[in-house]
């Protein structure tokens, strides 16, 4: 049995999701990472397909049309980029090359579409679907926790998720990493709803199948978001075989186990059938050559290049990568209060699950508000699995924390359960001191405790949010951990954003800038958003550029040295730092060459695709 979700739960979940959306929209001063630049470009190009769809629907579904519009970034499913493109078309405030001729270079085919509503910056319009999906995740967390645990768990879990600096930072981007977290969570919730114990499924066949279909469709959408979703069935299968193997392998009259095929939960069947179907329908590149494109897709990610990761002063460039990486990085990049809650919740929940499995209920002094014997295991596996994938020594670790974020959303549930221990302590206070025996007093103390736990996490989330991907918690020295412990600093080219005001103010007219790790498509969006002076020209060549923006990555230190020597100045003219740790150095050429031409040079060998 689960808790019945009521209108209040949807309202509360939606309210918190709204708060998160407001938090995100209020903090859009976050630079464009390399991959986001690529997805801006893809979204823009894909969006032209909508025109063809409206003008000539029959030709829109031809191979020629699909190949033309969806050629770029084929290594990721199209759905998020199609949404970003659609939102851009609806809400984006584009520039008109007729009145602003210089804007031609900013757009695909040198001309933007006509704005429809034209009410927001182009990057914000692109990001809007991601902001919405990522906000909805807060509601999913509430609903899941309220249904399977309690409303207090739901509240603490939702807040714990909302105040994670890295998740918050990534939630701004028009990328896939956080939308797939939302989708994984949604699929898990729908799957669990569709997979109650066998007796209940048999009792409510219709409802079970309806929920199973929702889970199947959701999984298809998750796969259409990012490839992390391919691992979801493995988690569910592992859970089912640990928790419910008796359903599919019951004992017969003589005690031997036999396979009861009909007892396999409908959710598995729905996922098997509907998942691939939805993936196929929402990814135009699959329409004409599904097998070949899937082969390309799988091969691309199965043999992905290894990105560098700077971890405790050691630059990891190839396998074997440290197994501890996702666990230690999470311990360092989740605010201390949320870590404490999560560890308490994990320890307590796991102990209780083991006791329940062993039918040793008498040992459970204060049971956690858990519905279903195996819910804790389900949440635990969904938390653990994404971590394990990255912990595998041969998996590229990419330097960031986003790739195991689907697991962190489930860790937030354990944080919610961890708060039960705080509540027990308050109850104990009431047992010992009469003054705390009153319900209102205990409530007030609980609220105060929640505030002192969440305020530091909230402060960590907002402080330095522009560089939120470089956050390390106070236990490891705060942002200073980057320098002191030799950890990853910058996250793939986004810090150029913080140098733009300085460049706009100080760079001479028509200055040529080597943007280093910032992608060409990100620079185009800076222009379009009015964040970069239009006369400033990107030139990925520090031998010739007037300025070099060195994004602080350990692997680029040799390049920095060469570049500043080429610039003729060893000392940066401007430093972007977060809490005293340099993230980006701007080097200025000492001698100014006479400029004979003003080329806009795209980076050589720009891969045009990223994680």
């Amino acid at each position: 049995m689960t808790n019945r979700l009521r209108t209040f739960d949807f309202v509360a979940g939606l309210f918190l999701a709204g708060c998160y959306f407001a938090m995100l929209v209020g903090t859009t001063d976050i630079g464009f990472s390399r991959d986001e630049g690529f997805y801006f470009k893809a979204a823009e190009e894909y969006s032209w397909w909508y025109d063809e769809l409206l003008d000539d629907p029959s030709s829109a579904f031809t191979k020629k049309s699909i190949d033309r519009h969806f050629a770029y970034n084929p290594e990721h499913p199209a759905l998020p980029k199609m949404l970003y493109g659609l939102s851009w078309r609806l809400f984006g405030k584009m520039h008109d090359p007729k009145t602003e001729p210089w804007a031609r270079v900013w757009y695909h085919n040198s001309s933007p579409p006509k704005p429809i509503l034209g009410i927001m910056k182009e990057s914000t319009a692109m990001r809007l679907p991601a902001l919405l999906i990522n906000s909805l995740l807060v509601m999913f967390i509430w609903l899941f926790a309220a249904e399977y645990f309690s409303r207090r768990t739901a509240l603490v879990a939702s807040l714990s998720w909302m105040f994670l600096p890295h998740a918050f930072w990534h939630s701004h981007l028009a990328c896939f990493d956080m939308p797939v977290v939302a989708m994984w969570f949604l699929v898990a919730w729908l799957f669990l709803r569709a997979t109650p114990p066998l007796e209940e499924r048999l009792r409510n066949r219709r409802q079970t199948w309806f929920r199973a279909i929702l889970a199947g469709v959701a999984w298809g959408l998750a796969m259409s978001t990012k490839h992390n979703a391919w691992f979801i069935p493995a988690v569910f299968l592992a859970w089912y075989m640990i928790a419910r193997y008796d359903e599919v392998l019951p004992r017969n009259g003589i005690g031997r186990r036999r396979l009861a095929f009909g007892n396999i939960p409908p959710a598995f069947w729905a996922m098997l059938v509907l998942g691939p179907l939805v993936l196929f329908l929402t990814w135009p590149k699959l329409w004409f050559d599904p097998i070949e494109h899937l082969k390309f897709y799988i091969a691309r990610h199965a043999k992905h290049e290894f990105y560098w990761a700077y971890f405790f002063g050691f630059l990891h460039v190839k396998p074997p990568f440290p197994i501890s990486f996702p666990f230690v990085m999470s311990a360092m990049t989740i605010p201390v209060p949320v870590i404490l809650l999560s560890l308490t919740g994990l320890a307590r929940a796991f102990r209780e699950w083991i006791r329940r499995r062993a039918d040793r209920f008498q040992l459970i002094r204060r049971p956690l508000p858990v519905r279903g014997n195996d819910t804790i295991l389900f949440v635990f596996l969904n938390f653990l699995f994404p971590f394990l994938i990255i912990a595998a020594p041969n998996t590229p670790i990419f330097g960031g924390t986003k790739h195991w974020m689907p697991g962190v959303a489930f860790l937030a549930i354990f944080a919610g359960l961890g708060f039960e221990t705080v509540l027990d302590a308050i109850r104990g206070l009431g047992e010992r001191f009469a003054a705390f025996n009153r319900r209102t007093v205990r409530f007030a103390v609980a609220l105060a405790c929640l505030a002192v736990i969440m305020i530091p996490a909230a402060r960590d989330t907002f402080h330095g949010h522009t560089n939120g991907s470089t956050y390390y918690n106070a236990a490891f020295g705060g942002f200073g951990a980057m320098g002191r412990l030799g950890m990853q600093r910058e996250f793939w080219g986004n810090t150029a954003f913080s140098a733009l005001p300085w460049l706009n103010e100080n760079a001479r007219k028509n200055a040529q800038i080597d943007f280093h790790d910032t992608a060409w498509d990100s620079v185009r969006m800076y222009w379009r958003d009015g964040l970069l002076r239009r006369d400033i020209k990107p030139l990925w060549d520090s031998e010739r550029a007037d300025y070099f923006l060195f994004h602080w990555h350990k692997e680029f230190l040799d390049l920095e040295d060469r570049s500043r020597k080429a610039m003729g100045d060893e000392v940066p003219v401007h430093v972007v730092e977060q809490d005293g740790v340099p993230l980006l150095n701007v080097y200025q050429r000492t001698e100014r060459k006479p400029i004979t031409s003003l080329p806009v040079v795209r980076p050589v060998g720009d891969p045009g695709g990223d994680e």
Partner: protein
Amino acid sequence: MKTPRKTMIAGFAIPLLSILFFGVSLRQTARVPSPADWEAAAAIVRQGWQDGDVVAFMPQWAQGASPWLRGLRVDTGENHDWYELSKAARVWLISSMNGRGDLPPEGWTMIDSRLMDKVDVSTWSPPRDRTLAFDFRGGIDKAVVSRTRGKTTQFCSNFKKNRWFCGQEHPWLYVGQESRDIAGRVRDIIWAHAVDRAVVEALWREVPRGTTLVVHYGLTQRAAEAREGSETVFSVLIDGKQVFSDTLKNDRHGWFRREFKLPGDGTSSVAFRVQADDPQSRQLCFTADAWK
């Protein structure tokens, strides 16, 4: 049933530790110098600047003051290299955050110190027990570079941009000046990439005697990460006699130091040899100085 004491301790520890770490976090932010603090520190440095000085930071990664120090010699390496800093006449240390109170290694003498709100500026004199008599990297033009394969020795006579090439210029097969990330920072070094089936030798004929030879060597960060090729053998020869040899595994990180006495008067020849069975990415680098 009464709530156990253990549960109460655990329950209240969470908010209490949260408060504690909140305080720590606020303090970590509060001690970060502002641009005005950096500017003030730089002004002090400029005021007392003399030829031969260098600026470093404590902790070394806290280099926010750099833009105000342009035109001066500033050590912008990721970590300190106290050995190289000791070649300066004086070192200005700009200390901030958790570096305040940290000191240079033993033997350094503080000349002056100015304590400010969030930044300290101190001036240090390196150990004065010896003086630099010969810098091998600076004297790269005096090196005799060769490659020996079996009984055949090829002398590398093409000297361009402070690098010795054996024949035409090559992107990595040379012996000469370079700067590379090695063991925690970019260092100015002599690059001596191993060569296929050959022993690379760099020889300096007239190194003053009555000195101590200080040699540093190691693989570049890139080479150690790449874990390619075979072990690399690095040897030091004084007057034709091998006095030291080290075999570096292909993933060995470090910037290793060895000292050798060059007793007596006059000069000695000092040679460095590099060889590897498989030279793939065997980017061996070294520096050497003779101190009187």
